[in-house]
């Protein structure tokens, strides 16, 4: 059995107590918790454990919570998913040391030992590695390491980066008993469970293809031989020299089209990378992920709120139809924090549309994330500015 409870309170004790009291299961096997960044996680964990027979608590920080009971991103939301019985996933934990690739690889090997073929695996990690300057744990490196560790084993990897707020202030992970940093957690679901994912987009290209002519990790120095920042500023029609350039993440992304570059526009063909910051001194922009490379053809992408809402409408309808007759256990929505209306400027909360649109009798939980991870063209990839709507269901026989 899977249950979802939600609360919103400035006192972490009360928030945790409300969630614990609302659960029917008094001795669940595992709690997956998404805890608003303004709540004290230690207190939340203690109260949940006290109330529910010292249950292991995994999960971590979230910029906000999304459930049928409520949606919010004040940092005071608490979402608790309680697993009891056969649906309970196994937990694997790896510290991100010495680096993200190695951690991902170790985790991949352990998952390969434990998981059945095509098993559903939820990956969570704390997004913020350090600040200032702000550095994120690159999901692309965790995921590439993970795939290397998996070797020839196939699993359906989905997940997200954990953040305390939309300003990327911090992130932390609950490892079952403690609050920790620099940690990747994999929830490996039993063989009877499979996951179906729908990626909800919201960006469209607003430029012709440009070639990355100089890049170092996540720092893009040149596009078509010109300083990347100059190119982007020209497109935006504004000078970012005076500001810190962090607001670029509110404006544009760089997108890489997969497959035939000249095929008609298809939102599902794009991998987007948000811009973390700009450096006017050397004309570079820093992306959320370091997985683009010299010679890659990219386009400047605009966040398009109308397209985002349209994508939600279509994506949710399509997923609902796909799983309507199935034995669904849990709907989990991993939603990029930037899509929230306060940040995107969308006239509607797209998370609300997802909750209302998925009118199936299945527990629903979601959180606002840093980076989203989902199976993409046969290989799980980290994505930016997306919503990943996952349905965990009993595998058809």
């Amino acid at each position, binding site marked *: 059995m899977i249950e979802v409870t939600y609360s*919103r*309170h*400035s*006192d*972490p004790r009360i928030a945790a107590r409300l969630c614990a009291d609302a659960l029917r299961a008094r001795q669940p096997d595992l709690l997956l918790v998404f805890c608003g*960044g*303004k709540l*004290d996680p230690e*207190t939340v964990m203690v109260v949940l454990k006290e109330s529910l027979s010292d249950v292991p608590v995994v999960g971590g920080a979230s910029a906000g919570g999304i459930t049928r009971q409520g949606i*919010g991103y*004040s*940092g*005071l939301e608490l979402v608790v998913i309680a697993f009891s019985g056969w649906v309970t996933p196994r937990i694997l934990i790896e510290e991100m040391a010495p680096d993200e690739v190695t951690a991902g690889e170790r985790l991949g090997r352990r998952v390969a030992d434990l998981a059945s073929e095509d098993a559903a695996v939820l990956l969570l990690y704390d997004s913020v590695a350090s600040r200032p300057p702000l550095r994120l744990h690159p999901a692309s490196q965790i995921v590439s390491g993970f795939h290397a560790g998996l070797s020839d084993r196939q699993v359906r990897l989905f997940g997200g980066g954990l953040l305390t*707020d*939309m*300003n*990327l*202030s911090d992130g932390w992970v609950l490892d079952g008993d403690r609050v920790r940093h620099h940690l990747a957690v994999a929830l490996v679901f039993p063989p009877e469970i499979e996951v179906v994912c729908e990626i909800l987009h919201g960006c469209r*290209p*607003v*430029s*012709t293809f440009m070639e990355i002519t100089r890049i170092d990790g996540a720092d893009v120095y040149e596009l078509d031989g010109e300083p990347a920042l100059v190119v982007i500023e*020209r*497109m*935006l*029609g504004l000078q970012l020299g005076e*500001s*810190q350039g*962090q*607001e670029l*993440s*509110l*404006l*544009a992304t760089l997108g890489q089209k997969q497959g035939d570059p000249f095929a008609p526009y298809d939102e599902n063909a794009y991998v987007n990378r948000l811009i973390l910051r700009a450096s006017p001194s050397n004309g570079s922009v820093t992306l959320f992920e370091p997985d683009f490379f010299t010679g890659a053809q990219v386009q*400047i992408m*605009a*966040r*398009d*709120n109308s397209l985002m809402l349209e994508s939600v409408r279509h994506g949710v309808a399509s997923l609902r139809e796909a799983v309507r007759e199935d034995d669904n256990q849990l709907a989990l929505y991993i939603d990029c924090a930037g899509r929230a*209306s*306060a*940040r*995107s*400027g*969308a*006239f509607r909360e797209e998370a609300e549309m997802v909750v209302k649109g998925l009118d199936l009798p299945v527990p629903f939980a979601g959180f606002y994330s840093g980076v989203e991870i989902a199976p993409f063209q046969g290989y799980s990839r980290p994505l930016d500015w997306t919503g990943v709507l996952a349905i965990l269901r009993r595998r058809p026989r």
Partner: protein
Amino acid sequence: MNVMPQSGKAGQLERELAYYRRECNMLGARLLSLQEEQSQAFREARRSRTVAKLIREAYRLIDHSTSPEALGGPMLAILLDNTMCDRAALLREDRPGSGHFTVTHALGLGGELPAPVSLPATPGFFFTTSRSRIEPPAYELTAILRLPYILWAYDATSGLALILGNQSESNVSRPFEEADQEIVEGALSVYIDILLRKRAEVEMREARRMAEEASSTRSRFLATLTHELRTPLNAIIGFSEMMATGSTFNPTPEQIGQYNTHILTSANHLLALINEILDYSSLARGRTSLSLRWARLEDMVQESLGAATAFAAERGISLGSQLGEEPLWLKVDRTRFRQILDNLLSNAIRFTPAGGKVRVEVAPEAEGIRLCVRDTGIGMLAEDIPRALEPFQQLDNKFSRSSPGTGLGLPIARGLVRAHGGELTIESARDAGTCVWISLPEEALHRGAAPPSAKP
């Protein structure tokens, strides 16, 4: 038809491609710009709705909070939700204009309250940006939330202040600016308003409770008073009727003697009762006049103990005192002070079983004096103590039934002690005796062989 050579056609196509690329990028830039303008407009509209939304949500708190102090946390939650800031705190100035602030509520700091802060000069409104110099008051204010970007408002009249803070200057929010004065001051005003309303509501509720209690006490008092007066009066009337001329009841001379005794006892009781009621009434109205003189404590205690000796002997109680070696003088109304001691001794004797002890003890204090009438009697429960100090509220026990008093002794004693500028308190526990403490202020005490020479 104009046929172009192959190289010319390629050149034409290249020019066409360049044109489309240029146009595509220009249209894209335009689209990007429009999209951003639309988002920006929505975010600004959302911000402008913040104050209205905040007011609406904040006023709802009044009905959902139990006390004024409980409003702070939810108020900050509403604020952070609406302003999208990372942290917030409410502060209270320790003394008006002192610049010393205590943080009363904070949100986003993991449950801990920041340390008190002192400001060299308290601004009414303040904010920091990346261009702000870290000097007073920015230095002190940014330390409160441990964030570089803060927005501050202070209301000198109430001594309350509100601070909001962000880790980043501009991400979800734009940098703080002058225009944010409306939001932060508006939010603080709303908080002060709901706080005052809640305080008024609580005070009104308390006043109502006290009025209801007073009304109930008055009714109870009147009912008890009627009963207390009627009992001896009935005895007087009944026995008088039996002895009256024309009565069908022919009492024997022996019976007439007994009836006269009953009538006299009842009349004396009635007189004592009326005197005490008048005393109590006079004390309650603050109209008791005292004639303060220096009197030796030991003399007054010995007089009271002497007067109680017969009653104590009759009930098998031993009396004693422990007044210390040093002669002590009290500036009191001697008659009234005796009345206090007599009342307390009488009560102590009445509620102590045979074989028990009643003692008068003195505990000199650094300031003033404390005098205690201690017994080894039945005591009372802590929750019964306030009731024992109310008029006609004798606690139900075998002693109160066997030896009824007027029920005004303790309230009168307390009223008289208070009239002397002191206080009367009770320490007691069931079956562990009672100690009634009389505290008198420093100016009512003199130590020495003789009283002070100055005129009272």
